């Protein structure tokens, strides 16, 4: 078990190291002089020279990379030439907002997807199963940015129940939730479809297992069979799916934040592309990749803890 976690952690570190190289080279591949991109508008030659020296831009590429990595490991992701603020500071302000959005979306996804998936599995072949599966497929097919526009039309314009856009910090929880519920629902509905399908598939596999037949033969009630036995084992798969869907949620957050004008890292990504704020773009990509690798590692560890076969064998099942 410990060896499994150590191996996965080592692989994740290697992946992260290569990802930093990709991010570094990717931003260097952008058009223009990197020294000018790192500076404010209309920099003087003296400023450009100072930037070149600070970021080792006058050295070979591997030395530049090491200098950049050294800065990044010390929390210095550069300064935005557009805002003049440290990139790390901007990210520290924006990441919690996107995290809140993704957590709310996951809660909505689980609240909808789990019970519907269980129902579809228990009532397999029935009208309920057919409706649930078709609705899930429709949920996967509907582009969520279109769903966002529909929600704005219905709940903000027609019914005027919720605000169309904007963000209120958590200092006012009610207003914060009022502003976040629609974008979270937009993000969560697509994930709910994935959770529903995975839950249905996992429950069907569990319900067909020998231990379930034994439980029924022993006279256990159907509720106990489903709730105590089949559901517990099915949740393992769903937990890992939720972890692996984090990347999809972050991708969805990019467009959702743009539609609902939420100042998270998703909107920051788009804004930095169009304003050619390359240090910020570099910082966003690096942080999201790091977070995603970490989330995958934690998901693998959680899966190994939940799955007794991995605990006993000490490796991936």
């Amino acid at each position, binding site marked *: 078990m410990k060896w499994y976690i150590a191996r996965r952690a080592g*692989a994740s570190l*290697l*992946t*992260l190291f*290569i*990802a930093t190289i*990709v991010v570094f080279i*990717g931003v260097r*591949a*952008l058009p223009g002089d990197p020294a000018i991109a790192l500076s404010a508008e209309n920099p003087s030659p003296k400023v450009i020279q100072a930037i070149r020296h600070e970021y080792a831009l006058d050295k070979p590429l591997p030395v530049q990379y090491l200098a950049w990595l050294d800065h990044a490991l010390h929390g210095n992701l550069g300064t935005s030439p557009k805002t003049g603020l440290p990139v790390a500071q901007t990210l520290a302000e924006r990441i919690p907002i996107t995290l809140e959005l993704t957590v709310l979306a996951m809660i909505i996804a689980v609240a909808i997807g789990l019970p519907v998936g269980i129902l579809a599995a228990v009532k397999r072949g029935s009208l309920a199963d057919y409706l649930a599966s*078709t609705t899930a*497929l*429709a949920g*996967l*097919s*509907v*582009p969520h*940015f*279109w769903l966002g*526009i*529909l929600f*704005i*039309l219905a709940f903000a*314009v027609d019914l005027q129940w919720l605000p169309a856009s904007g963000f209120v910090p958590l200092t006012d929880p009610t207003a914060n939730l009022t502003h976040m519920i629609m974008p979270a629902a937009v993000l969560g509905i697509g994930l709910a479809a994935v959770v529903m399908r995975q839950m249905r598939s996992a429950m069907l596999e569990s319900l067909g297992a020998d231990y379930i037949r034994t439980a029924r033969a022993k006279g256990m009630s159907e509720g106990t069979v489903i709730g105590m036995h089949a559901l517990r084992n099915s949740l393992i798969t769903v937990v890992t799916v939720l972890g692996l869907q984090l*990347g*999809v949620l*972050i*991708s*969805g957050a*990019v*467009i959702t934040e*743009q*539609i609902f004008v939420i100042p998270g890292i998703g909107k920051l*990504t*788009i804004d930095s*592309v*169009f304003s050619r704020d390359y240090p910020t*773009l570099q910082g*966003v*990509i690096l942080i*999201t*990749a790091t977070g*995603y*690798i970490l989330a*995958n590692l934690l998901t693998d560890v959680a899966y190994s803890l939940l799955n007794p076969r991995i605990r006993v064998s000490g490796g991936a099942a």
Partner: protein
Amino acid sequence: MSSIAATATVAPARRGSRLRRRFARRPVAVVGLVGVCIVVLVALFAPLIAPYSPNASDYHAILKPPGTSGHLLGTDDVGRDLFSRLVVGTRASLTAGVLATVLAVVVAVPLGMIAGYYRGWVDPVLSRITDVVLSFPFLILAVGLAAILGPSLVNAAIALAVAQVPMFVRIARGEVLSLREQEYVQAAVVNGAPTRVILFRHMLPNILSPLVVQVTVAIPAAIIGAAVLSFLGLGVQPPTAAWGTMLSEAQQYVSQAPWFALLPGLAIALTTLSFNLFGDGLRDVLDVRMRS
């Protein structure tokens, strides 16, 4: 001898017709296939179907609702016929989706097959590369690539293809890993067949099923991805008709002209739903475990 030869030539045809019959017994999948065919036909014959040029503006008919005389689905903010733009926009969306998927397949399948066949140092290196690509959330990767390459339909397709490569690599690699110990592969090796013959003549036909199913999943994902990039201004550029750009233009008029936003989104939803229904049906038919 002749009866054995006759049996050998009948079996593939019989298998094909069995699959077709099995597919036809799934009405939802057939509906998906019909939807896909309609979308493809609309894209192919778009200039003949559209009553107007997609960029022809009528400033006397701005934001007119569906059913307006001469404009079946209404007009947009500069008086362009929405039906014509939707029809012509099918081309951009389908082109992006198919191009991205084809690029991904062409690059990823040979790489995955080589990694799965040779193992050695190739497999772990390729696995690390796919892990790195997968470590970037799909849209972040696509936005970053689009920023480097510049906004256009082809660059958006390339960015989407890069994001899809890891999935095809893993499928091809996994299938080859399970096939390389099969007797017919061992026999080909013993007979001295070149590696390319073993991989592409013997193994590739036997891994087509999961690849085809993944293609039916990848195309709608790429269509949505292309629409998102166009919506953000990183894909198809205005005034070219594309569903994503239409949605972007419609956003500010959602209260006064809701059809302007509803129709392109509905086109995207129906297209991806058709592909998903078709893909689900195909997976049910081709999946050996489901059949047993």
